């Protein structure tokens, strides 16, 4: 198991692995063949960036059985997904800025799958071999924007404001996603605590089915969806998405 990060140091961008407080710099291609440069820095010396630069971030809508337990909605036959555009990407420690629109802003803690190889039409059995690792994400959403116009669900805008997709702090490789638990903590108080095993479409299904529609590239993310416990973020809050085995993504909302 390794924890890959991207960071800024000395006016340039680098990547490497994080071991405790030590940043081991690598060069080459993180997804294919990377070699240590031999340089080791301290975490406090570097600025953490998003751990990868996705060409696209696909975000699942309703993908947790817990959301359907009341029986009011029909379980979807196919994965229901949206996109988070690149202007939303934000690293661990970055500030989520309150947009000028008039809406409640909510947090949605999620597990994110990081794709490692170009994949198209991959089978469920092959799917995990195309996954590089996993990271934490917050699918921040302007809830009231979504249904403001009754004829059109404005997903792109509601989920697409600048900074609305923090992810990180690192990409963990060598993990089994089934045992993971997602916790969202707001100002020190646990608001979400749900198991990844409750997903309607587990990781291999998501990667396989989505790859039938779209070619996925190394660095692309699939946010697996959120479960119960989403809530409003107030300016001045600290929101953390913690997944044991990956780490804790922390951002302020202002």
């Amino acid at each position: 198991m390794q924890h890959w990060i991207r960071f800024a140091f000395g006016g340039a961008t680098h990547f490497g692995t994080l071991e405790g407080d030590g940043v081991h710099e690598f060069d080459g291609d993180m997804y294919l063949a990377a070699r240590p440069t031999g340089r080791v820095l301290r975490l406090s010396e570097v600025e953490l960036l998003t751990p990868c630069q996705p060409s696209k971030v696909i975000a699942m809508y309703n993908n947790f059985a817990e959301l359907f337990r009341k029986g009011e909605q029909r379980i979807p036959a196919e994965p229901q997904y949206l996109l988070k555009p690149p202007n939303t990407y934000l690293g661990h420690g970055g500030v989520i800025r309150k947009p000028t629109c008039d809406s409640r802003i909510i947090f949605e803690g999620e597990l994110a799958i990081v794709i490692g190889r170009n994949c198209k039409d991959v089978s469920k059995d092959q799917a995990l071999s195309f996954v590089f690792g996993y990271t934490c994400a917050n699918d921040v959403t302007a809830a009231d924007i979504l249904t403001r116009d009754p004829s059109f669900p404005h997903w792109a805008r509601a989920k697409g404001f600048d900074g609305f997709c923090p992810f990180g702090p690192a990409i963990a490789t060598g993990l089994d996603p089934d045992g993971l638990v997602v916790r969202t903590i707001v100002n020190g108080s646990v608001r979400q605590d749900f198991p990844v095993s409750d997903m309607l479409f587990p990781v291999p299904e998501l990667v396989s089915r989505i790859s039938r529609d779209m070619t996925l590239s190394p660095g692309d993310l699939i946010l697996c969806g959120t479960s119960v416990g989403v809530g409003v973020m107030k300016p001045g809050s600290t929101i953390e998405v913690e997944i044991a085995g990956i780490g804790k993504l922390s951002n302020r909302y202002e």
Partner: protein
Amino acid sequence: MAMTTAWVRFRHNGATGFGTLAGDRVDVFEGDMFAQPTATGRQLALAGLKLLTPTQPSKVLALWNNFGQLAAKLNLARPPEPLYFIKSPNSYLDPGETIRRPRGDPKLVFEGELGIVIGKTTKDVAVGQAMDHVFGYTCANDVTAVDILQRDPSFAQWVRAKGFDTFCPFGPAAVTGLDPATLNVKTLLDGVVRQDYPISDMRFSVEQLVSMISHDMTLLPGDIILCGTSVGVGSMKPGSTVEVEIGGIGKLSNRVE
């Protein structure tokens, strides 16, 4: 008539380049197309080049319900703000390349559109400043698998239905110096005109779109806003050729398989 310049991106001898197109030749430039590129003095024959999408956008946004004529036909009220969705990056397709039907052979429709090409980093710009941030215009086809859009009654699949690989051809050039209010969008299927509508019928003008959207999202040079489509949308079958033609820009042509 104002001086227009058609900027193209191309592949030549295995390398990617860009320049200005005049007739059947391209004057090759270097540097950053959006920030004072320099002329190299080299010229290449268009016939020897593979044209690519004129920019590599970080994102392509596309408008819904932005034309009065189509809204009237569908009985839709004028929205108070632009309604838009995102065309996924895997859908971008070069001029001349083939639109491929996804598995399951869903019905595909063409939607000929004007694409606004952003030229500067744009955030929170007033309507009066918006045009300064526009680089130029291009042609686009917002290809859609209509059956998939409404297949799930609890969730309209905008991203999926419009985001399959090859579903966003755009090009052939990004043209500067045009007045968008005078433009007309034509879509031809196998040589027959199926759409022919004026940009002046847009509910939100170019400057309004750029200004309002920039209050939500930072727009970057190369990003594209597709203005939406109007009446005449129809289905495309395998073996067809679909062309989106905008006088002053050129003709975007793609086959469907």
